[in-house]
């Protein structure tokens, strides 16, 4: 994945180097601007078995800040925020590859460096008895749950380093 560009970022930002599960690296630029969850909407995506985006709905595009063309074919980790602990995604992948649904609170990174919180549910898509893809649907989390998870994830991040 390409590094994020300062030209895309709104306002002040900090720079972080992310190392992904596949060993690749990317520089991400992060601001403190939160985008509120769009009322009444669901943010929907689908990936192949490797986590590469194959479908996104309009709310996904609006919230991520990338165009649909930039998203389709990109790994889902294009949205990974440096505040998210590795353990959350390890749990996600372990659960869905075992054929089970996963649910969790996720802080996502926008193209403009800002973030948004979601309550995400990921399920394996079974066709004729085989898992062929994954679908994720996000809904609006409560403020209390967001704060609880922000604190938990800070703790987990500290323990990582």
């Amino acid at each position, binding site marked *: 994945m390409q590094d994020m560009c300062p030209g895309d970022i709104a306002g002040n930002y900090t720079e972080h180097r992310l190392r992904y599960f596949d060993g690749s690296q990317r520089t991400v630029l992060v601001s403190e601007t939160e985008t509120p969850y769009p009322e009444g909407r669901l943010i*929907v995506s689908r990936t192949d078995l490797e986590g590469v985006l194959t479908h996104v709905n309009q709310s996904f595009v609006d919230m991520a800040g990338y165009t649909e063309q930039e998203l389709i074919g990109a790994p889902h980790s294009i949205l990974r925020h440096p505040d998210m602990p590795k353990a959350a995604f390890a749990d996600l992948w372990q659960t869905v590859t075992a054929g089970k*649904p996963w649910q969790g609170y996720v802080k996502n990174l926008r193209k403009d460096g800002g973030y948004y919180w979601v309550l995400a549910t990921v399920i394996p898509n079974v066709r004729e008895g085989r898992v062929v893809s994954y679908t994720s*649907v996000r809904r*609006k*989390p409560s403020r209390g749950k967001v704060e609880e998870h922000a604190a938990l994830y800070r703790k987990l991040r500290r323990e990582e380093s």
Partner: protein
Amino acid sequence: MTLQFAISPDFPPEHIPGWYIFNTWLQRELDCAIHLQLYDNFGDLREAIHADRLDLVYANPFDASLLVREKHFMPLARADNLQDEAVVLTADHHRARHIEDLRPGTVIAATDVPDIEMMGMIMIEPADLNRNNTQRITCDNYVMVAKQLLNDEADIGFFLAEAFDNLSDLVKNQLRPLVRSQIQVIHHSLMAGPALQERHATLQQLLTTMDTSEKGQGVLDALKIHRWSPLAQEDSEFMIDLMDTLMIS
């Protein structure tokens, strides 16, 4: 053999004559007898599905999974102008202005329509409300839901968006939408059972072109449907996957 055709119990009562007209048209086009059954609750409909008594179903999205994944029904078509969207309402005089103003103990008035129930519960999650910390009044129809709100028997009501939009201005002006879903991919579907497998393509062709004849258009008008759009198997599978994620809480 007489085919058995069932309509999901959440049809608007004013469409009953329309469904009979549609059934008459379908019998003529297919040249076979079809018995139309209007169930008045979801339990009876599901019992009929489980007992393999049905050949054609106009199904609520909630029942699509049972029909497609367990009973091997195949999707035929959807009404291209109708979507299942939900609104959470309060009485205009209620103190809550936002979903987040709602507190544990909130009393919910709702019908037994399962997808509207599911979307309503999801839209109150941001206030940390769930089945365990809310109370429930189940109503026979949306007019009764509105009445519970206006009489302060309930704090919020779950409505099919279309049913809310169709209320009289007099009632609508006394209600306040707190949030309205914009999901856009959840809808009722017309589905055919295994007995119709060989005639599936014919049936789909018939339905999706009926708006091109004057007679067919008249039948659609009686149901307030603009036209039937074809539904592929994967369209329904996608909607069912989405519904599956929403049922996890």
